[in-house]
């Protein structure tokens, strides 16, 4: 019998929480009662065993992606590869860079396939796959660091926008980053694309050789990291404004390139309280101090 993932409802009773190993999903859909039932059942069904599928091909998934061909078999694995392939010719990247978004997409796909839904999302630790039908929209909050009552920006994604994926990458994250951004959030056509692009832009926000940046070989932190001995960012000390600007400019250059190639729709780059936004025509520029109502880490 397959291992069963953890399935539960969050306290509000509206959002489904699915967890298995390192995968955490928050799922919510809107639609008719029966449709919702079918969609959530499909999400749970598809989620069951999904981690095992991925682990079956873990070795290949952790290897640098071949830009030209894909030997992976599973649909999620192949989606991961497809998302990173555009970057693989010029950069080091493994399919793992798109795992979160690809899983989110897979679950959302199963839900939408099971029943017609007005709108739905699958949030995989901040990497989010969206489903929108005519007239629907999502309001998305972007936060650079949840531990600071810092800036919060919102943006609205409407059904007539092409973006259906959101992802965030940064060195504070569970996944290692080669760059120093606190957070790079990307809107893209799919969650997997957004995930891979956020990783790439996050890597590009960097100050190579800067003494304030503490780096460490990834495999010293996690023995089997797909990044091998590449240096990942562990801490970023105080930076001058000029340094922050230089790092953000490097990230912006990458973001503009990806925007031009149609790989992303928009991106917001955060570093030490500085924000750069690329491609967000309808940037709700209502940058306002705000805090998460009930989310706060204590690191006393």
């Amino acid at each position, binding site marked *: 019998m397959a291992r069963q993932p953890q399935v539960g409802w969050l306290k509000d009773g509206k959002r489904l929480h699915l967890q298995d190993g390192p995968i955490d999903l928050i799922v919510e859909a809107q639609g008719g009662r029966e449709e919702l039932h079918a969609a959530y059942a499909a999400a749970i069904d598809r989620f069951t065993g999904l981690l095992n599928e991925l682990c079956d091909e873990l070795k290949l998934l952790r290897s640098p992606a071949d830009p030209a061909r894909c030997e992976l078999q599973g649909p999620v694995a192949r989606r991961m590869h497809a998302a990173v392939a555009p970057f693989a010719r010029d950069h080091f990247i493994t399919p793992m860079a798109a795992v979160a978004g690809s899983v989110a997409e897979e679950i959302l796909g199963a839900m939408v396939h099971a029943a017609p839904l007005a709108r739905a999302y699958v949030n995989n630790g901040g990497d989010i796959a969206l489903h929108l039908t005519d007239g629907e929209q999502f309001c998305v909050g972007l936060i650079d660091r949840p531990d600071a009552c810092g800036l919060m920006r919102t943006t609205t994604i409407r059904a007539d926008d092409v973006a259906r994926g959101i992802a965030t990458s940064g060195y504070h994250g569970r996944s290692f980053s080669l760059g120093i951004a606190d957070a790079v959030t990307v809107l893209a056509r799919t969650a997997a694309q957004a995930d891979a692009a956020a990783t790439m832009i996050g890597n590009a926000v960097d100050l190579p050789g800067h003494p304030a940046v503490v780096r460490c070989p990834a495999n010293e932190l996690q023995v089997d990291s797909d990044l091998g001995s590449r240096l990942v960012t562990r801490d970023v000390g105080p930076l001058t404004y000029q340094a922050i600007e230089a790092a953000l400019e490097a990230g912006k250059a990458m973001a503009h390139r990806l925007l031009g190639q149609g790989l992303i729709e928009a991106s917001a780059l955060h570093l030490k309280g500085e924000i750069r936004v690329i491609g967000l025509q309808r940037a709700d520029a209502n940058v306002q101090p705000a805090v998460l109502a009930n989310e706060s880490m204590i*690191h006393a």
Partner: protein
Amino acid sequence: MSTDATTSDKIRCDACPVMCYIKPGAAGACDRYANHDGQLVRVDPHVLLERTVSHGGRLVPFQASGDWDGKLVHEPDVFVTAIGAGTTYPDYKPAPFIVSSEIDGVDMVTVVTEGIFSYCGVKVKIDTDRFLGPETATVRVQGEAVGHVTTSEYGSQMLSLGGVHHLTGGSKKEGRVTCDALMDLSNCKPVEMTIDGGATVVVQAGYPPIVNGVPEERMRVGCGSATIGMFAKQWQGKVDEVVVVDDHITGVLSEHQAGKVLDIQDTGIKMKGRRSTPGRYFQVAEPGTGWGGTQISDPLSILGPFDPKVAKPGTTMLMVSTTGEHAAYYELDDALKPVEKTMPPDLQSSVERIQENCEPALCTVLFMGGAGGSLRAGVTDNPVRLTRSVKDALTRVTCGGAPVYVWPGGGITFMVDVTRLPAGAFGYVPTPALVAPIEFTMRLSDYAALGGHMDHVRPLASLNAGEIRQVTPPPPKTGAR
């Protein structure tokens, strides 16, 4: 090929099919499981009650009775601590990076994860006059710098350990060792430390310090001068001279004001060291772990020759340390040289009286942490109001239910006696950073006034009070800790 140590230290996590290899001090891909000294443990950053509740987690009420009447929660006999608020029962673990909150008009939030940055450390008070090391000397655990010797206090040596510099400013190993040492000290476990140019000491909160392998028993009763003042009358008529040997101020009965008042005659004694006031001598010897916190093992080495114009053969002399731990009795021979003799019983009892008046020597550990920054946001949408509320004493800060001292000035920097917290209250994240519980208690009306999240306030009774969270006992320490 030889197997190197790092390879064998790895453990393979079997919690999920990813089967991560995890090195000591590191966490797996999920950030939930980590290798702590070869043991697979769960690690979780500390979060406020609210999220655990929102994820269906359980909390840890100290007593499962009563309801919240809106008064100070501490007053009735139920007090909810933050211990364990960040964890849930086994197998179900909301990841720290999942954000499930809903904000007005916002459907979802995308974040990276918590930015862990920890300002914390411990202040250690070691009741001993023995020389532990020079002021500002580096304190090491497993060879790594974890802090320093700070200014001495009355009868005690003080260490300042941890802090952000050692936790995150040095090498990876320094950070990990510091984090481990802080957590062990905070959880009342023994930690062996060596001080550059000084002693090796085992510190355990609530227990006597072990200095160079010898458990300390008692604090000194007072400095040498104070001891003369306290016991002069009991010595009167029983002995001609008393020297109380002390690293700080050595006292001499016949010269001391207390002796003068009692008409004790000069004995012709000649002390080494620097005379401060009559009968009070500084620096009779170098500091050390011998008599009275000096380096000496033969107390006569601090005496010069007796003055032949004053001294008489047969003069009796007691030499005793400020703890009564060391004592010897002498009589001057015909050449006016002190010769050790068996101590008369009534002098022996005065030595025992000194011992009796010495309090047991203990190590005390105060955890000190700054809660002035991010965590306030979980309490109120206007964080500075929480700080002000604490300063105005409207809000009570506790740490795992224990009272704290909140430093005046900016932020909420507090200290707490770790022995007053329940066992295992402190945790860590591999950042490395320490995880400590903290609670803010205030009247509901005050909470509303400071911009609290009123919509998230819930009655105490709803906190699943009948259930007790299972706590995995911390892994046993290996090695000579």
